[in-house]
C-alpha cells in the first residue's frame, strides 16, 4: 500500500479541494486594485441612487406645493440621467483601466494556466466574472449607502423646510443606476481583460517578463470615427456661436456640437493625451528622476491617457458650467443694468444652478481621482524589480519619493491644463451661442469670463489629489529592498 492515498475518480472532488477552490474564487478580492474598483462602483451606484432619490423628493415637494406638475419632475429626471450617465461613464473607464492593469500584472499566472491547458477564453471569462463580482459588491454597498442617505435626508429635509411628511423615501426604481453600475462594471472588466487573449503559454517559461508595449495600432477605425465626430462637433459649435449672434436658439446648435466634439476627445484620448503629457513632462526639466517620472507616465500611453481623460471630463464640465454661467451673467447684467432687480435675480439663479451642476459633475472627478490613485499604486507594485534595480544603483528613498510625486503630478497637471482650456472654450461657446443676441444686443461678441473661485478649488483639489495619489505608492516604493526585488526575477 502506497503512502499516498489517491481517491477513486468516482468519489467526486474531495471536500477539502472543493472548499479551497471556493476560497480561491474570492481570494482575488485582496489583490491590489480590487478594493479601489469596489470603492468606485460603490461611489457610482450610491451617487446614481441618491440623485434619483433627491429627484423623487423634489418632485414630491413641488407636487405637494403646486399640485400635480409633471414637467419639472420630467426635466429633473432627464438632468439626473445625464449626470448618472457621466458618473457611470467615468467609473467604467476606471474599472476597465484597473482590470487591464491587473491583467498585465497577472501575465505570468495566466500564462501558467494556459500552459497547463486552460483556454484563453476561459481565462478571460474568469477575469470578467471577477469584474461582475466586484460590481455586485460595490453595487450593494452603494445601494445601502443611498438608502441610508435617502431616509436620513428626507427626515432632515422635512424638518428643515417644514414640508409635509415624506412617507416612502425608497423606491425600487431608485436602484436602476445600481443595476447599470453592475452591468457596466462587468462589461468594463470584459473590455479591460482583452489582453488576456494575447498571453501565450510560453510566457510562463521565459526567464524575464516580456515588456510588451500596449499597441495603439488597430484602433484606427475608432480614431477615424472620433475624428469625424470631432470635426462635425466643431462645425456645429462654430455654427451655433455664429447663429447665437442673431438668436438665443444658437445654443440648440452648439449643444450637440459640444456633445459630439467632447465625445470625440474622450474616444481619441490615446491620441489627444500623450502630446499633452509629453508637454507637461518637459516642464519638469531634465533630471533623471524627472525624466523617469515622465517616462513612467507614458509607459502605457493608453492606460494613462484613459485615466487622465476621466479627470479631464470632470474638470472640463465643472469649468464649463462655471464659465458659461459667469459669462452669461456678465452679459445679462450689462444688458439689464447693474442694479436692476432682474439682473440680481438672474445672477442669483445662475449662481445656484451652476454650483449644483458643478457639484454634480465634480463627483465624477472624485471617481476619476480614485482611479488615478489606483493606477499609480499598481504601477509601483508592478515595477518592483525596476525600483529595486534603481535602489541598488543608488537612487535614494528621497529620489524615489520625488519620482512618484512627479509621476502623479504629471497626470494631474496635464488633465488640469487640458480640462481648463476645454472648459473655458465650451463654456464660452455655450454663453456666446445663448447670449450673443440677448438683452438688446445684436452680434455681440463676448469675452469669456472665468470664475476664479471654482478654478482655485479645482487647482487646490488637484494638488491634494496629487499628494494623496502619491502617498500609498511612495510608501510601497520606498519599502522595496533591492535584494528582494532583484531576487524575484
Amino acid at each position: 500500500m502506497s503512502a499516498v492515498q489517491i481517491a477513486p475518480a468516482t468519489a467526486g472532488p474531495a471536500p477539502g479541494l472543493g472548499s479551497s477552490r471556493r476560497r480561491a474564487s474570492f481570494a482575488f478580492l485582496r489583490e491590489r486594485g480590487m478594493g479601489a474598483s469596489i470603492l468606485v462602483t460603490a461611489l457610482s451606484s450610491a451617487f446614481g441612487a441618491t440623485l434619483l432619490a433627491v429627484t423623487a423628493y423634489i418632485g414630491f415637494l413641488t407636487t405637494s406645493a403646486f399640485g400635480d406638475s409633471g414637467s419639472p419632475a420630467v426635466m429633473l429626471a432627464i438632468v439626473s440621467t445625464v449626470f448618472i450617465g457621466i458618473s457611470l461613464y467615468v467609473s467604467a473607464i476606471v474599472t476597465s483601466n484597473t482590470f487591464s492593469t491587473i491583467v498585465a500584472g497577472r501575465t505570468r499566472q495566466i500564462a501558467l494556466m494556459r500552459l497547463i491547458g486552460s483556454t484563453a477564453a476561459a481565462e478571460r471569462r474568469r477575469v470578467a466574472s471577477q469584474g461582475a463580482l466586484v460590481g455586485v459588491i460595490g453595487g450593494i454597498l452603494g445601494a445601502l449607502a443611498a438608502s441610508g442617505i435617502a431616509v436620513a435626508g428626507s427626515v432632515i429635509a422635512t424638518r428643515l423646510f417644514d414640508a409635509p411628511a415624506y412617507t416612502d423615501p425608497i423606491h425600487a426604481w431608485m436602484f436602476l443606476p445600481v443595476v447599470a453600475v453592475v452591468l457596466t462594471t462587468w462589461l468594463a472588466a470584459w473590455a479591460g481583460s482583452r489582453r488576456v487573449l494575447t498571453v501565450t503559454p510560453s510566457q510562463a517559461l521565459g526567464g524575464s517578463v516580456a515588456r510588451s508595449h500596449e499597441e495603439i495600432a488597430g484602433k484606427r477605425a475608432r480614431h477615424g470615427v472620433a475624428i469625424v465626430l470631432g470635426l462635425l462637433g466643431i462645425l456645429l459649435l462654430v455654427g451655433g456661436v455664429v447663429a447665437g449672434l442673431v438668436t438665443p436658439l444658437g445654443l440648440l446648435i452648439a449643444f450637440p456640437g459640444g456633445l459630439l466634439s467632447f465625445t470625440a476627445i474622450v474616444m481619441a484620448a490615446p491620441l489627444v493625451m500623450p502630446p499633452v503629457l509629453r508637454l507637461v513632462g518637459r516642464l519638469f526639466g531634465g533630471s533623471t528622476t524627472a525624466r523617469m517620472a515622465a517616462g513612467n507616465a507614458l509607459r502605457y500611453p493608453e492606460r494613462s491617457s484613459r485615466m487622465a481623460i476621466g479627470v479631464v471630463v470632470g474638470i472640463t464640465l465643472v469649468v464649463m458650467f462655471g464659465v458659461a454661467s459667469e459669462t452669461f451673467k456678465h452679459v445679462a447684467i450689462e444688458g439689464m443694468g447693474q442694479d436692476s432687480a432682474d439682473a440680481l435675480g438672474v445672477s442669483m439663479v445662475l449662481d445656484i444652478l451652476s454650483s449644483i451642476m458643478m457639484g454634480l459633475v465634480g463627483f465624477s472627478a472624485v471617481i476619476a481621482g480614485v482611479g488615478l490613485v489606483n493606477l499609480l499604486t499598481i504601477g509601483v507594485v508592478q515595477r518592483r524589480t525596476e525600483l529595486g534595480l534603481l535602489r541598488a544603483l543608488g537612487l535614494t528613498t528621497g529620489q524615489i519619493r520625488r519620482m512618484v510625486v512627479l509621476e502623479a503630478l504629471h497626470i494631474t497637471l496635464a488633465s488640469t491644463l487640458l480640462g481648463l482650456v476645454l472648459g473655458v472654450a465650451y463654456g464660452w461657446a455655450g454663453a456666446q451661442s445663448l447670449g450673443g443676441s440677448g438683452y438688446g444686443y445684436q452680434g455681440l461678441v463676448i469675452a469669456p469670463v472665468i470664475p476664479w473661485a471654482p478654478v482655485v478649488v479645482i487647482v487646490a483639489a488637484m494638488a491634494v489629489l496629487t499628494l494623496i495619489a502619491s502617498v500609498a505608492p511612495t510608501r510601497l516604493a520606498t519599502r522595496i529592498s533591492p535584494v528582494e526585488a532583484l531576487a524575484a526575477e
Partner: protein
Amino acid sequence: MDTPLAASVAHLTKTYGTGNGSVTALSDVSVGIRRGEFTAIMGPSGSGKSTLMHIMAGLDAPTSGQAFIGNTEITGLGDKELTLLRRRQAGFIFQSFNLVPTLDVRANILLPFDLDGRTPTAAEQHRIQDLVYALGLGDRLTHRPHELSGGQQQRVAIARALAAGPELIFADEPTGNLDSRTGREVLRILREASASGQSIAMVTHDPIAASYADRVLFLGDGRIVADKPRQTAEQISAHMLRTEMEAAA
C-alpha cells in the same frame, strides 16, 4: 592607509529568522577581494554566495561581523549613506533586468552620474566614449532597452558599471540569461576590464564563467571552503563534483 583590498568582510555571519526555523546563510566568513582582480564566487544554490555579495555591496546587512568597501566600513551605515556609497563606489551587473526601460541607452549608462546630480568630468566622458565604442554600442545610444538583444543589454549594463570607475563591480550571474557565445563575449569584456585595473566580483555557478576569473572562491554551507587562483573549467567542475560527493557521502 590604502589597502590592497577593494572590499573585505571579517567574521561575517548572516542568519535569517529566529529560533528553530532560523537558517544560517553565512557563518563566520572572512575574505578580501583584491584590487584589480577578477574574483569569482562559486557555490551551489543555498551556499550563501548571493548573500555574501549582497552584504559586500551594501544591499543587505549582516547579523554580525564587518564589511568594508575600500577603506570604508559599511556595516552600521544608514540607508542614505549606503545608497550614496553604492552610487559612487559600486557598479552592478545583474542576470537580467539591468536597465531602466523608460530611459535610452545613453541615459542608462549615465544613470550613476545623473543620480548623483553631476555631469561626467572630461576624463570620465572620454572613458565613456571609449567604452561605448569598445562595446560596440556607438549606434545604439538612442535606443530603448527593449530594442536591444540580451547580449547588447548586458553590454550596456557593463558600460554603466564601468563608467564611473567604481571601487568594485558586483556581477550576479551576468551570463545566466545569455546564450553561450554571447556569454563568452561578456566574460571576455569583464576580463579585459579587470586587466586594465578594474576590480570585479562575480557570483556564478557556471564553471566556464568562473574559469575567466583570476581567483575562484568556493562557498559551501555558508563558509568559504576553497580559495584558488585561476582554474580551468575542468578543474572547477572536478572540484565541485568532489565536494558534492563528499557532501552526499
